[in-house]
């Protein structure tokens, strides 16, 4: 029988959450105003008391900035292996745990969590992720999604939205930015029929922490896709990282939902949906879309967001 993750009662009050140990410490060298450590810190506020943790990273900004030898910012066990295999690597760790626990060589309860960027998750790491989800390991895979390859200098990924400028989808006389829509990785993960899948945003911390708590309670694979803006790649002032993520949610460009044991649920309703342009206009990567010659692309983006949102409402039983 699958566990009912909604029933578990864990506080999401900040007064309680601040008592949690800081698993990601200061002294890491991610950019000032980076969204990734915010996603990590909020996810790790959901770690249950009295469990031990192993964190995994694929190669990426988070990895290269938190484990610069001889320093580590991880106050727990940590492993990085390569770019495309965080899920497979962590599935090996989890299997060793099961084996050694069964033999009585390990007493503690462990949880396993991977944090990968969208490049290492949507693209090069998708096979490894899919395999790990299918095999049913008890591990959590979090994509800190900043919608491009940021560690190598802002190249388009499968998560980059249509119309976005990146260094490999530049706009010019024959281009208005990335031509293709991003793939719906959260739905792809959900199609693995695993206990828990969710989409979250660093702006909606309470929603994210609640999802983290469910993730740690789930007795099987979990995938969470967290929008984590990168001000360097998205081209906006660094103090706006959280606000930009908030606008993504308010415009329905990044809806917040969960799929618990196959049941889709909208976790943050959007009573007053703002035009997607209100989200995009603050970001330099979309600046060209606000020129006359690209207004069709902007209109198409809005159409796509509307269509995706309607589809999601249907899945969540919220359609009118």
């Amino acid at each position, binding site marked *: 029988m699958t566990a009912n993750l909604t029933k578990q009662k864990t506080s999401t009050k900040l007064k309680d959450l601040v008592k949690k140990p800081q698993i990601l410490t200061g002294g890491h060298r991610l950019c000032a105003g980076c969204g990734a450590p915010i996603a990590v810190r909020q996810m790790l506020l959901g770690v249950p008391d009295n469990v031990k943790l192993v964190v995994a990273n694929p190669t990426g900004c988070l990895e290269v900035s938190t484990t610069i030898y001889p320093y580590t910012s991880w106050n727990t066990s940590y492993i990085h292996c390569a770019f495309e295999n965080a899920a497979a690597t962590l599935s090996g760790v989890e299997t060793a745990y099961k*084996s050694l626990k069964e033999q009585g060589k390990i007493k503690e309860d462990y949880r396993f969590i991977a944090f990968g960027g969208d490049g290492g998750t949507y693209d090069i790491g998708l096979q490894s992720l899919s395999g790990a989800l299918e095999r049913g390991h008890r591990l959590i895979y979090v994509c800190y999604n900043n919608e491009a390859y940021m560690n190598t200098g802002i190249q388009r990924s499968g998560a980059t939205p249509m119309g976005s400028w990146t260094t490999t989808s530049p706009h010019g006389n024959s281009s208005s930015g990335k031509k293709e829509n991003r793939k719906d990785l959260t739905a792809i993960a959900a199609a693995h029929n695993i206990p828990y899948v969710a989409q979250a945003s660093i702006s909606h911390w309470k929603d994210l922490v609640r999802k983290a708590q469910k993730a740690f309670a789930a007795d099987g694979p979990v995938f969470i896709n967290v929008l984590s803006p990168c001000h360097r790649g998205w081209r906006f002032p660094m103090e706006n990282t959280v606000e930009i993520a908030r606008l993504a949610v308010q415009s329905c460009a990044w809806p917040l939902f969960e799929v618990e044991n196959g049941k889709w649920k909208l976790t943050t309703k959007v009573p007053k949906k703002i035009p997607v342009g209100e989200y995009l206009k603050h970001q330099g990567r979309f600046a060209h879309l606000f020129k006359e010659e690209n207004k069709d692309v902007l209109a198409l983006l809005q159409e796509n967001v509307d269509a995706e949102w309607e589809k999601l409402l249907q899945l969540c039983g919220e359609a009118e």
Partner: protein
Amino acid sequence: MAISNKLINSQTNKEKTGNDKTINNSKAVAIVGTDAVSEAMRQINPDVVAAYPITPQTAIVESFSQLVADGLVKTHMVTVESEHSAMSAAIGASAAGSRVMTCTSSQGLAYMWELLYIASGLRLPIVMPNVNRALSAPINIHCDHSDSMGARDAGWIQIFSENAQEAYDNTLQAIRIAENPDILLPVMVLLDGFIISHAIERVEIIDNDIVSKFVGDFNPPYSLLDSQNPVSVGTFDSLYGYFFEFKRQQEEAMLNAFKVIKDVGKEFGEISGRHYGLFESVGIEDAEFAIIATGSAAGTIRHLVEDMRSRGIPIGMIKLRVYRPFPAKELAEALSGLKAVAVFDRSDTFAGNMGGPIFIELRSSLYDLQQRPLAINYIYGLGGRDLSIELIEKALGELIDAARSGQVKQTVNYLGLRE
């Protein structure tokens, strides 16, 4: 039929197996090479196996899966979706302090390539039998050594097997070598595809308790699951640059491996009657010329060499067992004073008439000798091309000519190629 059943029905071995004493702790069975390997894996009883099927290795994964299904091992198996993930999961499981094995062949090994370097760089004692098979293209499922030779600089110890017995013996020894605190490097056990993997041979399986005692427990140097000592594994060497120092440490471990491999081979001889070193010599002390070969071809060549020696021809042979680390010093000592050597390579380097990898390295090993033997290279058996007695005799004829004339007609030769 599961191999364990065959063992139950087999006869206890009481014959004289070694050159020194009677060993009375094993059973002789007739099994294929893949079953010899999975039987070693059963006795090693690793905590974790992560593997993916590929011809001709598949039978190992199948047999071992059955052992898991029958509850005959404590192993937790990760049936991954690719060889890339097989090695990734093995790395994760090994870093978590468990004893880990995997196995592969050919394209699978090539697909693991970047992770081979990570496994050795993280100093993880993973043991991996590799059933040697040609690399594409054109796609070919038969034996040559291009797969493992492609990984020769990956920081893995590589040990070749001549037959199913050696595949079994080497797999057991590999655990001890890999996990030695002076080494802590991954080990690849090599066996020729089909020729060894799919041929039924007589194999002596040592009693379970003796193997258990020989293999011993794994004491990991670090573990992700050591709650008292959390570790960060796979850290980033960035601004300061210590990478060079870590690579030098790996080389040191390889240097240490020479002694450890010999020690383990000796200890293994004490329980099995079969003693192992870095390489095996036949008549090299009084030879004027010699053949160097590895893998299953060594068996055919030995037969011929012994026959020639019985007819008074001063030929010797070296069967190279350990390819990484490369026993350059010992080989040079053994071959010092010979007039000519013929090196057999089952892969090419495509380096422009430089010859196969063993030839290049052996010739380099001989460079510092005062009197260097002439060196001829024979590339043979690519993509499973048969190495017949006639072909070896042709090469031996040329070797003898070179030794007598003091001249090598052609340095790099393709043996058995249709011209």
